[in-house]
Structures are given as structure tokens and as C-alpha cells.
């Protein structure tokens, strides 16, 4: 995973609440067995409408999405993160995220910046005043800046550290190999086994 420190680029306002992962990527696109090439699937149904925010010329090349509360609820599909990433989105700003979506984002280097709902509205206002303007999400300083507005955001400390360092989660866990093996040695025999015990 590439280390992340500051993400700058066009910010698009997505003024909807409770954007579930079925909307981010509908189920028909989950049949693919690859991990890339999902840019065409992002918000597939909504993108059929010309007035959808990401269809507007001024937001082409957007790197930051500023969404209403409860972004990424519902299905666990990590494809939602892959679709955002493949489309070019590097950070999503919202006042609340679905738990599984937020976890998936952290694993895939998509920054989820949580700010109070009032700050989401202030950012939307700044974007509306100057559509297509660049914004900046600074992971080191935990700030979002757009025009003369700067607000701070929340992100889990551990996720932030991993993103800043670009660390692979599995590699980190395997540093605990001895502890895992020791834990396995003391597991009770009644616990389930999917294969016949020899």
C-alpha cells in the first residue's frame, strides 16, 4: 500500500444521506473476480442521470467526495471501495460512515475523514460557491481545507498510522506468529472444526 499524507484535488459534493453500498456499486458488478476495473460501476444507477454530481463537467477528475451522513452503510462489499478508488476518489468526507465500509477503506488506502455534520454543510457551501475548486485533506494535521475554510477531522489512530506508513495489515499481524500459535495450542477441543478430526 502506498503511504498517504496529503490528498489534494477537486472535491465533489454528494448531498445525500445514508448512501448504502448497493448504491455505490450495484450487485450485478460484484460478479467480477478481479480487484480493479470497477470505475464504470461506481454509482452506476445514479450515473445514468445527467444531473448526477459526478456527471457534471466541473467535477471531472474529482479526488475527494463530500457526502451526507451514514455513507457506506449496508452490504460488506469491498467492491464499493475499489470502485471509488478506481474512479479516482482518494478521500471521502462525511459525518458518519458504515462500520464495515470504513474498515474496508482503511485496508485499501481510501481515506475516510469524519467531520461534524455542520462542517460537512460548511464544506458544501464552500464548494457550491466555487464549483470545481480544489480541496485538501491532510492526514498528518487531520484537517480538511477548501478555500479559506479549514476544519479538523477524526480518524482512528491506528488506521491513520497504517495509512501514513503504507503498511500491509497481514504482514503486521504475522509479526505475532508466536502468539497466534500459542493461542491455538490452548484452544478447547469442543470448538468447531469443518474437517473431520483425524
Amino acid at each position, binding site marked *: 500500500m502506498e503511504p498517504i499524507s496529503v490528498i489534494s484535488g477537486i472535491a465533489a459534493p454528494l448531498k445525500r444521506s445514508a448512501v448504502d453500498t448497493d*448504491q455505490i456499486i450495484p450487485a450485478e458488478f460484484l460478479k467480477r473476480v478481479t480487484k480493479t476495473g470497477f470505475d464504470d460501476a461506481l454509482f452506476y444507477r445514479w450515473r445514468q442521470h445527467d444531473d448526477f454530481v459526478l456527471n457534471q463537467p466541473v467535477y471531472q477528475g474529482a479526488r475527494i467526495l463530500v457526502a451526507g451522513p451514514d455513507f457506506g452503510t449496508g452490504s460488506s462489499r469491498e467492491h464499493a471501495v475499489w470502485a471509488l478508488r478506481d474512479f479516482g476518489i482518494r478521500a471521502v468526507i462525511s459525518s458518519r460512515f458504515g462500520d464495515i465500509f470504513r474498515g474496508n477503506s482503511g485496508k485499501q488506502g481510501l481515506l475516510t475523514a469524519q467531520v461534524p455534520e455542520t462542517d460537512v454543510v460548511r464544506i458544501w457551501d464552500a464548494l457550491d460557491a466555487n464549483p470545481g475548486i480544489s480541496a485538501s485533506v491532510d492526514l498528518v494535521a487531520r484537517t480538511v481545507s477548501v478555500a479559506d475554510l479549514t476544519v479538523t477531522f477524526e480518524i482512528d489512530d491506528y488506521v491513520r498510522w497504517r495509512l501514513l506508513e503504507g503498511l500491509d495489515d*497481514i504482514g503486521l499481524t504475522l509479526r505475532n506468529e508466536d502468539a497466534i500459535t500459542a493461542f491455538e495450542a490452548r484452544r478447547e477441543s469442543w470448538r468447531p472444526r*469443518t474437517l473431520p478430526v483425524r
Partner: protein
Amino acid sequence: MTGRTLAEKVWDDHVVVRGENGSPDLIYIDLHLVHEVTSPQAFDGLRQAGRPVRRLDLTIATEDHNTPTLAIDRPIADPTSRLQIQTLRDNAADFGVRLHSLGDKEQGIVHVVGPQLGLTMPGITVVCGDSHTSTHGAFGAMAFGIGTSEVEHVLATQTLPLNPFKTMAITVEGELRPGVTAKDIILKVIAEIGTNGGQGYVLEYRGSAIRSLSMDGRMTICNMSIEAGARAGMVAPDQTTYDYLRGRAHAPEGQDWDDAVAYWDTLATDDDAVFDAEVFIDANALEPFVTWGTNPGQGVSLSERVPDPAQLEDANERAAAQRALEYMDLAAGTPLKEIAVDAVFMGSCTNSRIEDLRAFASIIEGRKKADGVRVMVVPGSARVRLEAEAEGIDRIVTEFGAEWRFAGCSMCLGMNPDQLAPGERCASTSNRNFEGRQGKGGRTHLVSPLVAAATAIRGTLSSPWDLENDPSPAEPVDALVGSRGETPRQAQGAEN
């Protein structure tokens, strides 16, 4: 030291490495369920890193999301679905994972298969690349959905780094009226706390109404915890749990069983434990429940009217409700019972177990479906299908005019050919009424199996209560499956 909750006990007993300075705990995973949709990229990741599956004996796979529910002996028509299924078969063969393929009698929806094999048990941790993994919490397991990166992580390490959660008690006291079921409880809970109310929490369902539910009912409730934003929902294990589990293929035996029960008996939340949040629901007052909008929290009692968004105080909720009514093509103030449906879907990991099918059959037996309504009945697993057929439920379904299908996720999410056409309206026993969930442009009303059955008979959203005055050869409504976890057949038997 104050007492601990059920969730905290299970968590504590799975900590491999306690996190320090804000880093997560490393949690051991007892059971990893795998299906075709969220696993291909995870197996690819293992391959690229040259890693094996660490614990094949704690891993099991099945095919469910893409599988057709008709003509399962023929090749899958859709080439992308076929490729995804084939990819799972190749991965299972390459890595040595136990797989139940289409046509196998243990094939079915992953959350139906785990419990019926006796793999799901109290006090264990269960994960799957599917948000409805919360289902398994009904046994007092800590069970939650994960993304594909985490699937790869568990395949490689049998652990996950996880942050501790908060705990919420959902206490449901009282006795459900006949015709009111577990599904109505959970739809009410979600409407009450909202689709984000459970975010960051593990929900523990408690109280007399939960205690009196069967395991199938408890699974329905825990299944939809994620629709309230919670990754996991749990019910403390009790005699109902043990009776369900004992004798199943993978349930412990002999000394192991005794040791397990001795441990499981210690898991219930301590009397002096403190929850971070508490919610109370009066079971006595519950009525059959139905959703009117495009998220599972947008629901009301079936006897009510479509709400008026203008009455909502929160601006976001108001905007969401307006959008939802537009998508659902509903006018505020319309009595819900006047809403006509085009389709009824009886199935999904929420409501496709044998008791769900029995409940549905108890209402439709001896009747005919409404003209012009398409009714699809999809058992949760091949085994459930066989069990239902042994009881004659398939015959009741087909004589009613409904379709009796093979097992899978089917029209819950329409990854296979079972989809709504644009504009079609469906009463569905599934778990999500999101825009386009059951097919592009499809409109979903989430309901219980009993409401699905009554709706299929009358053609408009209905509960068994609406059938009381209809001439019918079916058994009286008060013999239906209710709060006490009896099956209709058992209830009938008790009366005879």
C-alpha cells in the same frame, strides 16, 4: 470489578494480543465462512504473497449469491456468474477448502448452512465476507461481516485486528400476539433506533420475548442487526440453543459436549454488567410491521399509513423520506393495506429456514394466490428444501400457485436471474429495501413470512389478521407460529 456482558466475555476469550496505545486487539477467529462473491480477490492475494490458508479445518465454503434457483443441473447461463462460481471451485481445490457446491445437499445460503451443520455454536467467533454474518450471533457467538481484505487476512492468519466495541442492550419484554413474529420485532427495533443507531455497538437482544423465540426466530433478529448499523447482534445461549445444536453433524459430543455446555453456561451477561446504551421494546404492543421506504429503518405497523415526510423534523431524514416515496411511487397518507404488489419473495438468509417455510405454508395451505401476483419460495439451503418436501410444503406451495425453487440468495439481491422488473413492487421476507436491491427499478417492502403469505393471498399488503374474516379452509390464525417458538405443526399437534 464490575460484571461483563456476553459480548465482552466472548471477545476477552479470543484476544491473542491485547492492543496497546490505541492499536486494536488481535482477535482469533473460530469459524470462517466463505462464498463466491467476496473471496476471489482474497485467494488471489494469498497466491501473490505465496501464503497458504492457515486453518483449513476452520474454513468452509458454499455457493449461494450467484446460484440459479431453477435448472441447477445445467451450466449457469450468465457467463460472469458461471466464472465466479468456477473461480470458487478452483480456489477451493487449489487451497484445499471444503466446498459445498450447487447440487450438494449441504449447499445453500452460507448463514443457513453454518447453523444447520452445527458449526455455529455459543462462545465462538464467526466471520464471513457478508454483512449478514450477524445471523450467527443468535447462538451467543460473536459474528460479523468483513470485507475482502479481511477475508484474505483471516485466510492467512486466522485472526483479525479489531477495535473494541460498545455494547447495547435491546430488551424486548412481553408476549407476541399470534401473527406477530421475530421479523416484526427486528423491523420495529430498526425503525426505533434508526439505520445508524447501532454503529459501533454489538447489540444484545434480551427479555422474555427473545427468550421465548426459537433459534430460527433468534437468527432472523440477529441477521438484521447490520440494518441498524451494528456489525454484530447476540442472544445469550440457553436450553433452546443447546436443544437445537445437540446431535448436529459438527456439534461437540461426549466429554466435549459437557465441557462446552459448562463453559456456555457462564457466558450470559452478568447481573451487574453495564451496557453503554439500552433500548426497550414492548412485545405486547407489536403488530405486523412493514417498510414503506428505501432503507430498513423506514417502517411502520401495517395498520398505519404511509408517513408524510413534511412531518419529519430532521432535514436529512425528511429529504431521504421524500426521495424514498418518489422511488417507491407512494403518496403520503395512503393506508399501507391498500398497496398492491406484483410479487412476493419468500426466502433470504433472514427468513428461509424450515420454520419460516412452515409459517408461510400454514397460511397459504388450501388457498390460491391472488391473480397477477408472482410468488417465489426459495428455501435457504438444499437441506431445508429436502426437509420441507418431506413435510409436503412443496406441494402446498405449488398448489397455491407459487414457484418452489432451489436454494440460494435469489431475489434478495438479484445477482442471479431472480429479479424484479423496473417498477415492480414486491413484498419480500429479505433484509434490504434499498433502491434497486431486488432488480433495477424494483420496489421492496420488507415483511415477515406470515405477512408475505397473507399478501400473496390478498394481493395487497396484508397480515394474517386480515384473513380472519375471509372464507378459508386454512387452520385458524390463533394456531399460527407465534412468540413461543412453536412450529405451526407442533401447535396444531398440541391442540389435537
